[in-house]
């Protein structure tokens, strides 16, 4: 995974010098919506980065590539599980590590003089890898799966100064992934989230 991220990062920073494009890096906060008994806690451990390039002469549309990761974790106090012929008692952590990559497209709504604020809505389609894990004492059980990922997203780009290339970015998104875990009761994985961060604009 690290190798893929490095390759991607080097790629997008190289492309970031292209005209009419932007590279962004966001802090990503997520809220699980599926099987919240297993993990219901929000996750502040997440990030998203990507590169988007405007297409067309009016710069109303962009296409790009986004990658993200999010880590959900929930501590479960000591519990006894009765089984046929015995029982097991332990406290444990449930955690999910989700990493995704999508190809995305955005539409930008006109606002003001079109120089500083760029509200947008878009959708990303790609794949996600989810690792569902239970950790107890020094032991752990894990199930990993890949699935299709769809991510509608809305947000806004804000140029800090008219001549500056650095900007702010904020957005909300909803993720639907088919990465399932039969062992832990996930037919799919859905989450909502908001993202906040910086971007480097090339226009």
């Amino acid at each position, binding site marked *: 995974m690290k190798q893929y991220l*490095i390759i991607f990062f080097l790629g997008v920073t190289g492309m970031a010098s292209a005209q009419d494009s932007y590279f962004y890096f966001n802090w990503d906060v997520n809220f699980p919506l599926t099987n919240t008994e297993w993990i219901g806690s929000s996750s502040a451990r997440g990030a998203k980065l990507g590169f988007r390039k405007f297409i067309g002469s009016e710069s109303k549309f962009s296409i790009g590539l986004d990658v993200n990761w999010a*880590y959900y*974790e929930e501590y479960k106090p000591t519990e*006894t599980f009765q089984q046929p*012929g015995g*029982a097991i*008692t332990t406290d*444990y952590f449930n955690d999910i590590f989700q990493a995704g990559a999508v190809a995305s497209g955005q539409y930008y709504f006109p606002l003001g003089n079109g120089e500083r604020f760029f509200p947008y809505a878009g959708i990303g389609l790609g794949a996600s890898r989810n690792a569902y894990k239970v950790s107890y*004492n*020094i032991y752990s059980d894990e199930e990993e799966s890949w699935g299709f990922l769809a991510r509608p997203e809305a947000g806004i780009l804000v140029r800090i100064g008219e001549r500056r290339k650095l900007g702010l970015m904020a957005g909300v998104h909803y993720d639907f992934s088919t990465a399932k875990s039969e062992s832990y009761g996930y037919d799919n994985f859905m989450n909502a989230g908001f993202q906040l961060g910086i971007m480097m604009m090339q226009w």
Partner: protein
Amino acid sequence: MKRAWIGCICLGSMLWGCQPEPDAMLLLDQFVVSTNYDNDVNFQSYSTYSIATDTIGFVSNQSNDTILIQKDTDYPRPVLQKVVANLNSMGYTRVGRNENPDMRINVYVVNNYDLYQQVVYPNYYYPSYYGYGYGYGGYYGGYVNTYESNTGSLVVEILDLKTITPDNKVKVIWGAYMGDLYSSIDVIKQSEEAIDQAFIQSPYLHN
């Protein structure tokens, strides 16, 4: 320069997230306690048991010792006393080995020490593993990482002495497995708590 800084922060943050682990210290202050029993056994039909006083067994793949003795370590006596206290509270009576007990209580530690190595090839994404003593390192510029793990479980077993087979074999009718001993914060305290828990989650053990 600014872009490089931002890039470093971004990359560092991304890699930091690959892949987080839960807070292990929170999980190490109590053992995992697993118990099994024979569904066909009526534990109320047993009344007496025998157990060692200051010695527990030791099964290890790194030591030739087969027992842990109180004079060498503080571990056996409190563990055995805790087992005895729980059995007595459940209505069983401790007797000597020569007094024809219904049950024999075995208490022992299983220690599993593993040493394994991983050959890492720079820029090669699929490291290969092999067991200690096999394979080779340094091939095509790779290097060897060596890891070790030392794990241990405390085991308490109840043996049925009422139904010894003609070839002198006895059946384990109840077992408790508790660990990990070697990652614990206070091994004696956690062992005592785990033994209590093993009996709590085995209510069928009443005489």
